[in-house]
């Protein structure tokens, strides 16, 4: 009897471990399916046309950390915005982006010698097959920028390196913005929309598959932030892949790993069981 009990306990323990390991192997990638630099893109539903329209409630947000951009302008390391919340949705032939960040002051005028406006920018590679240098791209690897400023509104820009920013004459992107709240809770909310199909020279193509690299920048006008004095993100990406589960190789790899773990546990348990049985 004691032998049988011990054997059962051993088997039960081995089975429990196997289940736990299997669960953790399979469930972990499901739970943290979004890698650090991925910004989820939800199917567009509801009204996403404005910064505070209802549709945004159902769109998942990613928090993107920001840091002072490396720049040669004076006081480039003195920036004030540390993160921006990004939501993205796609549908009906349009891409919608909503950016939100805390900024206690609404700076929208540049009509004084020391006045600068709050601004935000979204940067994409013009050629999506490779990542341009993060700081405004490079001469052979340019970036397409969606720029919004509290003073001048929306501009679509092209840049091939710092200092080369050029405004495109027929912008394909619209933006609308609102500043709400007060003090620490005061928040800018800016919504960009663009037709997915918006052909044009030096304009980023938004494809149906693959990842689209994207980076963000925010300027706090009341902190004299302008030009290279700005808070910027690293490159992130929108997964415009074939499905919400991400690229298929990931699932295949996790499945193989799960089977392998189950197999190892089963073989170990069987080995323990046999060795104990052999001793009897």
């Amino acid at each position: 009897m004691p032998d049988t009990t011990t054997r059962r306990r051993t088997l039960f323990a081995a089975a429990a471990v196997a289940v736990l390991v299997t669960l953790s192997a399979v469930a972990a990638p499901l739970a943290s399916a979004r890698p650090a630099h991925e910004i989820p893109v939800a199917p567009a539903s509801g009204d996403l046309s404005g910064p505070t329209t209802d549709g945004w409630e159902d769109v998942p947000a990613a928090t993107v950390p920001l840091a002072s951009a490396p720049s040669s302008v004076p006081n480039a390391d003195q920036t004030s915005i540390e993160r921006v919340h990004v939501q993205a949705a796609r549908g009906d032939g349009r891409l919608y982006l909503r950016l939100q960040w805390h900024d206690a002051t609404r700076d929208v005028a540049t009509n004084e010698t020391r006045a600068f406006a709050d601004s935000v920018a979204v940067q994409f590679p013009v050629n999506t097959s490779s990542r341009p240098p993060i700081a405004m791209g490079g001469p052979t690897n340019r970036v397409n920028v969606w720029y919004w400023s509290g003073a001048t509104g929306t501009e679509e820009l092209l840049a091939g390196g710092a200092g080369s920013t050029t405004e495109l004459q027929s912008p394909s992107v619209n933006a609308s913005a609102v500043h709400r709240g007060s003090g620490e809770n005061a928040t800018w909310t800016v919504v960009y929309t663009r037709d997915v199909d918006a052909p044009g020279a030096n304009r980023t193509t938004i494809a149906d598959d693959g990842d689209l690299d994207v980076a963000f920048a925010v300027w706090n006008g009341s902190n004299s932030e302008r030009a290279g004095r700005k808070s910027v993100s690293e490159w992130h990406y929108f997964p415009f892949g074939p499905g919400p589960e991400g690229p298929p190789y990931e699932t295949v790899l996790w499945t193989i790993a799960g089977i392998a773990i189950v197999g190892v546990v089963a073989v170990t348990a069987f080995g323990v069981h046999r060795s104990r049985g052999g001793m009897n």
Partner: protein
Amino acid sequence: MSSQNEQQDGSEDTHVNVADGVDHQVAMVMDLNKCIGCQTCTIACKSLWTEGGGREYMYWNNVETKPGEGYPRGWEDSGGGWKSGEHSERETGEIPSEEEYGRPWEFNHSEIMYEGSDEPLRPREGAEWGPNWDEDQGAGEYPNSYYFYLPRICNHCTHPSCVEACPRSAIYKRAEDGIVLVDQDRCRGYRYCVEGCPYKKVYYNTVSKQSEKCIFCYPRLEGEGPDGETYAPACAEECPPQLRLVGFLDDEAGPIYKLVEEYEVALPLHPEFQTQPNVYYIPPYAPPQHTDEGETVDVERIPREYLEELFGERVHDALDTIERERQRVRQGGESELMELLQHKNPAKQYRLEVFDDA
């Protein structure tokens, strides 16, 4: 044969260091002993270039009383320029506020002209500072108070820190004559040039949202007027005492070269900013100090230390040279320097076409 010794590659053999990539360098010498503070230069400039459209507060040319706060207020302590003569690292600077420039005042014209008010004509409110607010105030105590006038335009520097400050290369030194200009198509109003200029001679237009500055009246130099003739900048041509010489620093036959490079009596303002200005000043003389009884004493009225603050150590040699040459003329001798500084100027006051055929 040209006085400029043309070399094989077309560059000229000159002793003057013009900026890299610049063919010739425009320059101006202002004789501070002739300035009467009438502001005709200021108005000539303003009526030509900065009358309206966001330029109301701008004076590309201003005349300020020294010692004094100047325009914009306290500009000498507002930063900018270079940390050293190596021109590798810039001093950070500040953008002057509207108050420091002086806001255009609102006057009670309508009350007086249309509403029958018998108030005196005066600014409505906020008239607490403005360009030339401390006019004629100066320093020192009676009977030895002193002041002089300092006309200022953009110095069109050989090492312009405003140009280096612009992250977009929107402000540049043009190749043919070294005039510093803001490309209005490239400027995005970041104002790094405004804070980077230690003389605070770049201004932000609050309407166009771009920066602007003295253009050395280049359309006049280029004969773009209705008669097609070449003219010196308006501030120079309109000056009643004609205190300005205009030409090229590297025109070795011209008076500017002689005053700056040979006699070394024309000095840049605040050389310690290290931008190497191309506007030069003949430092001011004043009558010696008096006793309370009106006796003249052998003490300079304008302290040398103050002039050294403005023009650097070389002001001592410059003033000594001028004094020596004055003495020579007093004793019946001849002096080319004294002739250059007078209206007998044999070398022409404006020499703007010397390189036209080069």
